[in-house]
């Protein structure tokens, strides 16, 4: 039965991806892409990766979808078009891509068997961290350097996006809400965020021991914040506002501070002192969740459109 289910999912996934590429209407293609992101969440569940499923649904489906829809709305009718390929060219490219897919598929089939794995190593080492979720252990202990640098990547993307504002209004607030907010949306923006915040806090809290964690929780909170801003219930913050900047920096800064603390009280950079690993990791995750939420929401909101209040 599960095999049938997997086959159905796979067929659906590929059909939907083809639809996204072939659809002529941009907006429809993007809506189909949003659906693709949600569908990928199901696929990740079948790959025994609930942590990734949560991330994919939240970021791949929710975040990227809204980002692209906003962009399509802003660009409609005046998007930059580079020259498209001719029919023959398209066929040639399609053939090339098919060859690449086939080669890659062959490589996937030919991967070493039995598959090499770090699962035993990861589960042996997890006792030292006190965590119960091995994915969180990888992200915040074994490969914490990646996570730290990735937070900087997100922050840099935000700095880059902010820098696209015209000189006079740099540091101001983005424009997110439409001029007229339809009633049902305002209703949604009042009723959904309580659920969202509870779910976000829950995601963060279980993340240490069960699937979930700082990215998933942060994205949920970001989505709720965006919803509230879009419905005009709260104004979007100025990029230059000290509170926003402190929230953005807080998570990575605490992460760095604890990382440097490792030089003094543990084995070195990013090492956690014995017995304190779990509380420290949870503290880092708490601060990171807020930073991620603020950063992702601002990434979607875009550069300033109003001069900052001085």
């Amino acid at each position: 039965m599960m095999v049938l289910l997997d086959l159905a999912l796979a067929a659906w996934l590929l059909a939907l991806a083809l639809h996204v590429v072939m659809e002529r209407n941009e907006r429809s293609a993007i809506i189909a892409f949003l659906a693709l992101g949600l569908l990928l969440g199901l696929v990740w569940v079948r790959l025994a990766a609930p942590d990734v499923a949560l991330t994919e649904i939240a970021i791949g489906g929710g975040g990227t979808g809204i980002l692209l829809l906003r962009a399509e709305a802003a660009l409609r009718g005046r998007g930059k078009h580079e020259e498209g390929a001719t029919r023959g060219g398209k066929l040639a490219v399609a053939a090339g891509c098919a060859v690449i897919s086939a080669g890659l598929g062959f490589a996937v089939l030919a991967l070493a068997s039995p598959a090499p794995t770090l699962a035993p190593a990861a589960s042996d080492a997890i006792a030292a961290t006190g965590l119960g979720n091995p994915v969180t252990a990888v992200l915040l202990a074994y490969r914490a350097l990646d996570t730290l640098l990735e937070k900087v990547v997100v922050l840099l993307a935000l700095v880059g996006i902010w820098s696209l504002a015209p000189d006079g209004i740099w540091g101001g607030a983005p424009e997110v809400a439409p001029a007229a907010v339809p009633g049902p949306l305002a209703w949604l923006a009042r009723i959904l965020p309580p659920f969202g915040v509870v779910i976000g806090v829950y995601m963060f809290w279980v993340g240490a021991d069960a699937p979930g964690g700082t990215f998933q929780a942060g994205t949920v909170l970001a989505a709720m914040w965006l919803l509230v801003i879009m419905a005009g219930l709260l104004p979007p913050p100025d990029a230059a506002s000290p509170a926003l900047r402190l929230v953005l920096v807080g998570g990575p800064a605490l992460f760095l501070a604890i990382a440097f603390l490792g030089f003094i009280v543990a084995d070195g950079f990013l090492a956690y002192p014995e017995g304190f690993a779990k509380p420290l990791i949870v503290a880092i995750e708490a601060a990171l969740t807020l930073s991620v939420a603020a950063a992702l929401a601002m990434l979607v909101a875009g550069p300033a459109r109003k001069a900052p209040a001085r």
Partner: protein
Amino acid sequence: MNGLVDIATMVLVSMGAVLFLAGALGLLRFPDTLSRLHAVSKADNLGLGLIVMGLLPQAESVSGGLKLICVWLLAQISAATASQLLARKIHRDEGRS
């Protein structure tokens, strides 16, 4: 005892699946946009509700049951908002053409 619960689950889940099927049929068959979309969203939501009811007795913990109910509530909220926004949109689209 356990068998009785299982049978209840099976019946409710089957009914839920049938409702999903009915919704899809409605989507394919009904003539105008509004009734098509209403059919599918109503049927799907009822179907989801039945599935949640069917799975509630199987829940291992109170929090698990709460989460099930939460899923259903979210689907309700989503359907209510979407159908209202949709109705507005269709109304305006018709007004324009």
